[in-house]
């Protein structure tokens, strides 16, 4: 009997050891209720019903069955050209973006541009434009310069400049300040200090980032064609429109192989650069 009394006494003295206090439990229950209400509201809003889900899933299985076996269809040349266009867009776009982003990155780095206002505003502009997805750029450039890979190229360049400029600026800020200082102390100008004190330190890092950007742009270049900006995405979108599912799966597999090959190559180059 004394055991039960002990428990009661301990419960009174150390309520926390016997479980969360009532307000915490209430908050937990309230949170769960709010979550369920949110989920229910979304389901009602987006018209997510079990019937619609099951119909969609069964349709999906039909498509998946039609995707096997993958077949290249009759237009091998178009598919290969699309793939080549995608890789070319990604390569050239990343290169041009890197060339433009280098001076911008220098401008955005705190240790190069000492003026805090300039530094802050440049960085915010990069950040802002990074919120614009590549597909939005692609759609805009398709309207501006017409259908085709040129629009995709410009879209990749425009979107990548903002991303790379920010990465470059961060890499440059992390550089060791003593080397440019020593160039300045030896009588070099600020430009010389950047060229001989800063760039040799950060160049391998920047190159590695450019290679990463190339990999990720190869992936995104594969879908820019969906809005008409050239590349393999156009081929996929066309085949989905006419429901040639076996060719769709074939192209998806081809894209995966290409992306894996680019990743492999770029990883090798990167390892060589870093060491």
């Amino acid at each position, binding site marked *: 009997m004394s055991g039960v009394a002990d428990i009661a006494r301990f419960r009174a003295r150390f309520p926390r050891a016997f479980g969360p206090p009532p307000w915490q439990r209430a908050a937990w229950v309230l949170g769960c209720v709010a979550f369920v209400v949110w989920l229910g509201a979304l389901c009602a809003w987006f*018209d997510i019903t079990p019937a619609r889900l099951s119909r969609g899933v069964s349709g999906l299985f039909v498509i998946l069955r039609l995707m096997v076996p993958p077949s290249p269809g009759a237009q091998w040349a178009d598919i290969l050209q699309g793939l080549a266009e995608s890789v070319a867009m990604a390569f*050239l776009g990343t290169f041009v973006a890197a060339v433009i982003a280098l001076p911008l990155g220098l401008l955005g780095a705190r240790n190069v541009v000492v003026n805090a206002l300039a530094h802050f505003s440049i960085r915010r502009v990069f950040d802002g434009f990074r919120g614009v997805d590549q597909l939005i750029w692609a759609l805009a450039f398709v309207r501006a310069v017409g259908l085709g890979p040129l629009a995709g190229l410009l879209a990749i360049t425009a979107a990548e400049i903002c991303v790379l400029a920010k990465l470059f600026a961060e890499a440059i800020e992390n550089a060791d300040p003593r080397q440019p200082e020593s160039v300045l102390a030896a009588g070099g100008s600020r430009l010389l200090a950047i060229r001989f004190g800063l760039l040799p330190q950060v160049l391998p890092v920047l190159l590695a980032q450019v290679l990463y950007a190339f990999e990720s742009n190869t992936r995104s270049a594969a879908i820019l064609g969906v809005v008409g900006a050239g590349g393999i995405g156009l081929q996929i979108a066309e085949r989905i429109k006419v429901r040639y599912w076996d060719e769709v799966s074939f192209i998806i597999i081809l894209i995966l192989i290409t992306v894996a090959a680019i990743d492999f190559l770029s990883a090798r180059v990167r390892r060589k650069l870093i060491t």
Partner: protein
Amino acid sequence: MNGGVAALETAWRARRRVRIVGGSVVVAILLVCLLLSAWVSEAYPAALLAGASRAGEYFVKLWPDLRLPVLFAGTKVQGSLAYWMYRLDIWLWLLFETSQMAALATLLGALLALLLCFPAAANLAPNRVVYIICRRALELFRCVPDIVYALILVWTFGVGPLAGILAIALHTVGALGKLFAEVAENADMRPWEGVRAAGGNWAQAVRYAILPQVAPNFLSYILLRFEINVRGATVIGFVGAGGIGQELYSVISFNNYQEISAIVVLVILCVSAIDLTSEKLRTLAIGRSA
């Protein structure tokens, strides 16, 4: 002495020659690749020049027509903020819809990833076959971009947000599952051994030994993925899968320049706001574990 210096000099010259030759070979390869890609992507000088001027014109037209004296005038006055954002209520609602799509997709994807990530962690997988199957499944989900999923799902689920949500969720499963599995592989295995030694089964060991360790990191990755998915959800509407993208697609197609810039500015603001909030939450989630 002189011989030593001369030897050093020749050695240095030889090294320098090797470097110059190697460097020029690399530059030559790069140039060939660049020219080749310029040719393939139809970036001929003439097309590029014409395109650049047309793109310049296009982006100048996008610039909002704002005039300082009437900046805060009503919707009827041309040149005011309200005139530029005359459909603000509709756009904000669409942006809210977009963010909710991203939230639901992230939640759905994270739940599936949570199921798949533990068997896909090398240290936790019950056996080799399950491990390999789960790993490959995650890769398969990850390597198809969400917009391609959306193109396919719009066929089966119909035009609307549901297709977009499922498309983003499918890609999220793969992306998050891989990150989750890597976190789980780095977990401390002693609690696991403790639970197993006390007679707990596999599921109990995952729940009581691994999950408490990895939950903060998982939460942080989920929030990061939510940010990425918000960006993705803004464009998933281009293929008819709901959200602000559908509206953006139509105003770009109809060349309603002022509306394009208004929507893009709203998207940037919304994405930045969500990024900032999520960054705060992420440091909170990680900070609690430390």
